[in-house]
């Protein structure tokens, strides 16, 4: 017996909507079993994980807070993924973005700088873009795999962050904690609502989503990127410059991650500290895939993953769920998504043995 995948003629639309939903259901079922095996009250855990975030304005606002960086980074990454440019080091570009943005308040802790906030956001974006640009340069000039280069660069970024926080940028009055000074008021992003933490970076992320939609689905540039991803030789044949596609993909994803990093220090953190590197860059890869790499799908998936984060927090309290359960959930979600996407996109064909 032999399995073969046969492409369904017109199932892309179905796959777009069906696959994530089916993956979510399968993930929930599997986690129920897993949690039960580990002696965690499974129903309670799922309730906390998926419903709690909607039950109070505060926790829902926390979902929106988490969603901003995830959405922004994932939109950038998805552009590259569709062009077969695998930037998996968004974490590093995020950190570099945060560092670049932090330079201004670190050097002007009293806030004596006009345009402090815009400068931070721009510096963060450019920093992330430049950091991703290293990978683009090495790929286009020498053919070095951007997968490994971006990954290595993000590991280096963590070390740069550590160096700055333990050395030159350490807050002199911070009891030796590895963190910078608290940022002055004019270095903080305006909040969207009173008394809760979401800030205008969510607007950035939604605007980025709209931009991504217009570019990838409606504009010739996006078409060129998609062509480069689906059939590199066809892109070459049509004369779409491959190096330009690589530069564009990495620049945009680096820019998005950098702005997200800047928004994190200028937003909920209010200073540069080690916990800025909490894995948004990696989680955004999952967000991008579960969103089917489509701009609107990613809006939905970033919301879902954010719900899981906040739900996970509350589940640790109410159901004794370990923090790591969120990672387990994410990992399963992506695995199941990859599975269901193929199952919907293709028919599994069973080759019958010849009956001699």
């Amino acid at each position, binding site marked *: 017996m*032999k399995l073969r995948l*046969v*492409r369904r*003629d*017109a199932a892309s639309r179905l796959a777009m909507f069906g696959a994530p939903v089916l993956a979510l259901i399968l993930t929930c079922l599997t986690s129920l079993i897993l949690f039960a095996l580990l002696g965690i009250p499974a129903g309670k855990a799922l309730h906390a994980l998926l419903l709690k975030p909607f039950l109070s304005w505060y926790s829902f606002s926390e979902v929106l807070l988490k969603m901003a960086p995830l959405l922004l980074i994932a939109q950038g990454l998805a552009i590259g993924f569709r062009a077969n440019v695998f930037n998996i080091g968004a974490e590093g570009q995020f950190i570099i973005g945060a560092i670049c943005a932090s330079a201004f308040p670190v050097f002007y802790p009293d806030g004596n700088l006009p345009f402090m906030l815009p400068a931070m956001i721009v510096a963060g974006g450019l920093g992330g873009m430049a950091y991703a640009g290293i990978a683009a340069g090495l790929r286009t000039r020498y053919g070095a795999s951007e997968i490994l280069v971006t990954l290595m660069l993000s590991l280096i970024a963590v070390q740069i962050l550590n160096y700055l926080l333990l050395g030159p940028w350490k807050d002199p009055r911070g009891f030796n904690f590895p963190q910078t000074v608290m940022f002055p008021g004019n270095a903080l992003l305006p909040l969207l609502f009173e008394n809760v933490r979401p800030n205008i970076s969510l607007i950035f992320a939604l605007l980025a989503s709209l931009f991504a939609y*217009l570019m990838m689905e*409606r*504009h*010739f*540039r996006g*078409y060129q990127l*998609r*062509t480069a991803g*689906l*059939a590199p*030789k*066809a892109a*070459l*044949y*049509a*004369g779409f*410059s491959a190096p330009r596609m690589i530069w564009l993909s990495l620049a945009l994803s680096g820019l998005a991650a950098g702005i997200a990093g800047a928004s994190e220090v200028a937003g909920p953190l209010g200073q540069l500290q080690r916990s800025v590197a909490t894995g948004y860059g990696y989680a955004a890869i999952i967000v991008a895939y579960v969103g089917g790499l489509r701009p609107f799908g990613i809006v939905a998936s970033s919301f879902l993953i954010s719900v899981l984060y906040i739900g996970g927090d509350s589940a640790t309290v109410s159901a004794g769920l370990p923090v790591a359960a969120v990672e387990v959930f994410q990992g399963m979600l992506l695995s199941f998504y990859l599975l269901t996407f193929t199952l919907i996109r293709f028919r599994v064909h069973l*080759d*019958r*043995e*010849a*009956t*001699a």
Partner: protein
Amino acid sequence: MRKQALLTLSGVSKRYGTVQANQAIDLEVKSGSIHAILGENGAGKSTLMKLIYGVEHPDDGSIAWNGAPVQLSRPSDAQALGIGMVFQHFSLFETLSVVQNVSLMVPGRPAEIATKIGDLGRKFGLVVDPDAMVHTLSVGERQRVEIIRCLLLNPKLLILDEPTSVLPPQSVKLLFETLRKLQAEGTAILFISHKLEEIRALCDEATVLRDGKVTGRVDPRAHSARDLAQMMIGRDMPHLAVSNSAQPGEVRLRLHNLSHPRATQFGTTLTDVNLDLRAGQVIGIAGISGNGQQELAALISGELRARKPEMVQIMGQAVGRRGPMHRRALGFTFVPEERLGRGAVPEMSLADNSLLTAHGQGMLRGGFIKRRVEQSFTRRCMEDFDVRTSGPDAEAGALSGGNLQKFILGREIMLAPDVMLVSQPTWGVDIGAATAIRRRLIEMRDNGAAILVISEELEELFEICDILHVLHEGRLSTGLPAADTTAEEVGAYMIGARL
């Protein structure tokens, strides 16, 4: 007296999606015979071989070996029975040596295998250095390695899939001698080809396939090539009347001392290629693939940049260092030999595939795609060029080879090019569509376009070209007026006997 039937297929069928590749095939191969499977590209020959070799499994019907029914689940089952296969596109590993390649299939210590390779080489005229790395070997030598690898397993049946398509005429002669020696040793040979003369020269039995069905079982020596062709294509060989009375116009494409070093160990270096293509002219480039055709096409299209601007001139402009978009803007279009993945994106709709090269036809406004224009262009292309599928939203990957070729050719013709390059225009296209495609090309020429055709099919080139050049080991022959030359003369250039 009747020889024993070694391999018997009864009522074997195989279907891929909507395509019936093989339908109720009966086939009997006798020990010690050279049996031809004859058919056009796409007639189902390769599928049939995959079924016999256990790569694919029949939907229906049965296979028997020496009269006993067998199940071939995987190639190793076929190998165990004594079936060996020489693939059309060789299954050798470039970075390994000859001995290593052979030892992947043949048990034994490397030293023993090297000795066996030498012995076998002397016996059958298959000389090859056992320690050579495969990537350093010529195409002919690689084929010898493939054959040796099969022979060391002592096959009772040897399958050769289009073995001569990659060989120059002299090597074909050597191959035939080897095959006759094998036959004398009692090995049965299944010889797959669409070349009639070769089959008449070599084989003692032939099964003819058309559209996946058997249309004839004959002794090829007793029939003329014309008879065989009729069985193969269902009617007489089509002939296009070529009469180009018009005087060619100005030079539209000029290759000027075009030299280009090979990119990899596996590529071909181009040396001093010179060519003038004029308005109202069809020039053909003949030659066996792998002699620099791919490199030449990519250099003309701009997918590969020449080393100096003046090496490639289109419409009087030196464009050697410019990209494809620039060249297209000058009125150049190109139909590549690879349709899926190069000429078209398989996962995209036909409409989106129009956008690939026809975006200059008003499909964009401020960079945004105008779907309506895209759709109407595609619909027109489908009507004008008889592309048979559900509509502009059908994915390119779902089209048959012939339909997709018509679409790509149509798309490029609708751009109203001044200069067009067409590579292997009728590969894998059914005979009706092929004739239509050739007619289109002639029509374009008559309307003043300049057309360059790169093709392996000599007959095709003679049909449509005014002038023929031959590409051999990266060098281009002088132009031979098609009316004054013969297949023999072109053949001599093809093997490098003349320069």
